């Protein structure tokens, strides 16, 4: 699903965010990337989302070499990927329903399909019945679930998460991780950037570690 081949990312100030990183996330696989904040985890996800371009190396996502995609093709690339943020990036002047419906609206879905899919996504994250609520009335954990519902409403084949449990207490964090596992079980490839070693340790998925831009494979799988 994702293949990094000797990928480097240098910034203008000579900072090396990623140094010859190589890895392969197979279709339907779930994996973690750990490392301290500033170790390059976000950079790696940004490269996959084409929010930034690699300085060197080759990135292939869903059989597509990202170097071949021009500016106009970026939206279509992003539609294939569900993205979950640490700060969930919800729009606070939109209802829960409209937040989740956003990816469907840009895809031009019919309004009745949108309703059906949004409710299905809400059901999956355990928030059915909250569609009319405004995000500000929800707890942090619920807001994160709305963010996840938005990421999966379009049924992407790849789900990326950047510190999805960063702001949550351990119990909620475990619930969220369990959600990701459920998506993975129905075939979605999942790549999660997280510094929460204690949480990841117990989970049976490959873990890669980023340190000073270098990627090392801590654990292939268990």
């Amino acid at each position, binding site marked *: 699903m994702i293949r990094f081949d000797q990928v480097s990312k240098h910034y203008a100030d000579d900072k090396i965010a990623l140094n010859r990183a190589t890895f392969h996330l197979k279709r339907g696989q779930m994996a973690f990337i750990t490392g301290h904040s500033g170790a390059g985890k976000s950079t790696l996800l*940004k490269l996959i*989302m084409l*929010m*930034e371009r690699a300085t060197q190396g080759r990135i292939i996502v869903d059989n597509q070499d990202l170097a071949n995609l021009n500016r*106009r093709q970026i*939206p*279509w*690339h*992003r*539609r294939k990927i569900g*993205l979950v943020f640490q700060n969930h*990036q919800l*729009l606070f002047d*939109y209802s829960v329903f409209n937040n989740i419906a*956003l*990816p469907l*609206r*840009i*895809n*031009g*879905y*019919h*309004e009745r*399909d949108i309703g059906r899919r949004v409710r299905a996504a809400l059901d999956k994250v355990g928030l059915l019945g909250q569609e009319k609520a405004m995000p500000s009335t929800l707890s942090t954990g619920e807001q994160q679930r709305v963010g996840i519902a*938005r990421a*999966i409403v*379009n*049924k992407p*084949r790849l789900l990326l998460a950047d510190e999805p449990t960063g702001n949550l207490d351990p119990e909620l964090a475990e619930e969220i991780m369990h959600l990701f596992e459920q*998506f993975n079980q*129905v*075939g*979605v490839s999942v790549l999660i950037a997280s510094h929460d070693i204690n949480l990841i340790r117990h989970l049976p998925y490959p873990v890669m570690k980023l340190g000073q831009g270098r990627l090392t494979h801590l654990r292939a799988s268990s």
Partner: protein
Amino acid sequence: MKHTSVTPNRPSNRIQGWLQEHHKAAIGSWQRFWNSVLSTTFTSLTLAIALALPGSLLVLLNNAEQITRHLQASAQVNIFLHKDIGLADAQQLTQQLGQREDIHNSYLISATAALDQFRQQSGLDTILDSLAINPLPHTIVITPAFHAANQIALSRLTAKLDTLATVDEVLVDLQWVQRLAALLETTRMATLGLALFLALAVMLVIGNTLRLAIENRREEIVVIKLVGGTDAYLRRPFLYLGCWYGLLSSGLAWLIIQFGLWGLQAPLQRLGDTYQTTIELVGLGISGSLGLIISSVLLTMLSATITVTRELRLIEPH
């Protein structure tokens, strides 16, 4: 999760979806347009004034041209006869000329009548009384049957009149009409120049308004870009917003122009009364109104396209 084929991929659904998106963007931006009534009204009024100024000047110019066309049409040609021509011959010639196709009407000012008129106007009675003979010739005044702006026909007529044995001199007093026409032409060019500058002002105001609207929705734009919203999708609501501004401000400009004309009608009529004539001001009419609306919407849409394309490019998720 099953990967069912995505319904919007069917062409009919895609067109339907596209129409649905336009409909939603139009409605959404219309609602946003009225969310802040005060700023929307002020911005639209600013635009309306910028549109109404050249608009009303052009309407007034059209009216002025219509009035002067009327004046030009009645331009006169003075024919001075040789001094040895008798009154009877002059009367006969006047009649003959009046029958010509290219002459609308003709009348004679006899030498005696001319002298009397001059005496009355100048007050030089004693000097004129001391003259042994009347120095003034008989004069025939004709009004051509064609438009005075028709220079070729006019010069052909004057040339023909000049060849008549009895005619001493033919005078066409067109200078003031030409001066007026030149003045109107100058005013028209100045108005067009002004219109260009004000069109630029309209574009700048719209550009700035939309830039702020985009800035206010920066967060939303970032999220939409991240979930794969295309530039066209992001542009759409703002282009509609520009369109609404164009429509509303042209409507307001139309009202300003029509009320202005309505206010001018009475004082102009008082002016017309002194010339014993009726002055009927002509408004924008259907073509003028449509021109105003279309040019306003085109201006705002053009400005919106430039601004929105540039501003949206500057907002990238990071």
